[in-house]
């Protein structure tokens, strides 16, 4: 094992996080601003970012706390939004198999859409990448920036002008990873079906952000079906 520190793959992980931050910083600031607007203290706002560290579910929880929703509704809603991470956990788990339980727990704590998608894409492209260090470079960079962004948002209260649409940088990151992930007939079918179902679910108004897990499962099943069909 490579004992250099900082490991070069850690530095590469930090480097590739750069463009993602364009989308993360305004998102984190919105989390801080809405917490402050809901009447939460700065410590509570940052505390939520430290303990939960998941943007969409934090915003949903803050919104529901703001409107005095029942305790169970807030917790269940916020947790269901994070159910999609079950798929990330399963998908990235084989790459972390050789690491100790303690290290795996730490890596799980910083599992996000971005860290998952960027790392798995890179492991596929370059199998010699250090699984631990490359992922850590992305995961912990996002973690630190998320905490600072929430703090600044909660304290200063002013955000980045909405017209700039910086939050659009996040779907662009996913798009950049999606294109190479559609590498054959099965995966392409999975993507098309998942995208169509997600769009349909958005129109139909599926509650509690269940649209993503539902769409992803439909896409995966379609991909399996089309590949099985071809082998008959």
């Amino acid at each position, binding site marked *: 094992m490579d004992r250099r520190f900082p490991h070069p793959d850690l530095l590469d992980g930090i480097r590739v996080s750069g463009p993602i931050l364009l989308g993360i910083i305004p998102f984190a600031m919105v989390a801080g601003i809405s917490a402050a607007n809901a009447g939460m203290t700065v410590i509570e706002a940052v505390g*939520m970012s430290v303990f939960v560290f998941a943007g969409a579910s934090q915003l949903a929880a803050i919104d529901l706390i703001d409107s005095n929703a029942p305790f169970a509704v807030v917790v269940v809603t*916020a947790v269901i939004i994070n159910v999609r991470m079950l798929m990330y956990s399963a*998908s990235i788990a084989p790459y972390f198999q050789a690491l100790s339980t303690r290290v795996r727990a730490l890596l799980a704590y910083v599992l996000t859409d971005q860290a998952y998608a960027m790392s798995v894409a890179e492991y596929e492209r370059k199998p010699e990448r250090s699984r631990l260090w490359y992922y850590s470079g992305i995961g912990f960079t996002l973690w630190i920036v998320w905490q600072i962004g929430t703090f600044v948002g909660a304290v200063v209260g002013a955000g980045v002008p909405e017209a700039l649409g910086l939050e659009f940088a996040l779907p662009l990151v996913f798009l950049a990873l999606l294109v190479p992930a559609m590498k054959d007939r099965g995966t392409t079918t999975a993507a098309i079906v998942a995208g169509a179902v*997600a769009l349909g679910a958005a129109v139909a108004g599926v509650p509690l952000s269940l649209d993503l897990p539902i769409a992803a499962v439909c896409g995966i099943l379609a991909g399996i079906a089309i590949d099985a069909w071809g082998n008959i």
Partner: protein
Amino acid sequence: MTAWSSPAIWAAIGLIGLCTFAIRLSFIYLFGQIDTVPDRVEHVLRYVPAAVLAALVIPAVITIQPTIEATLVDDRVAAAIIAGAVAWRTEDVFATIALGMGTLWAIRFGPSLLGL
């Protein structure tokens, strides 16, 4: 403004955080305890990135409007088409974001900057 007490807020934060961590850890913990991931599971997992990424991207780019024209003539759709082409040619995240955001801003602010 919320009427929630501070202990209630902290209890919610703690509970959401704990459940979220359990979700994140689930398979990462489980697969570490076994020697090999079953072939059937690996087979299913290979579709996960494409499906999840598409489900994240498409609704963020397209908002269904009453007409097809209103749905497709949209600055985000145009930016995503350019970005998608860049992603396909370069497979570079930075170039994809740069040209995608550039297209979005050119459509949003270009006309007024040029005094049109």
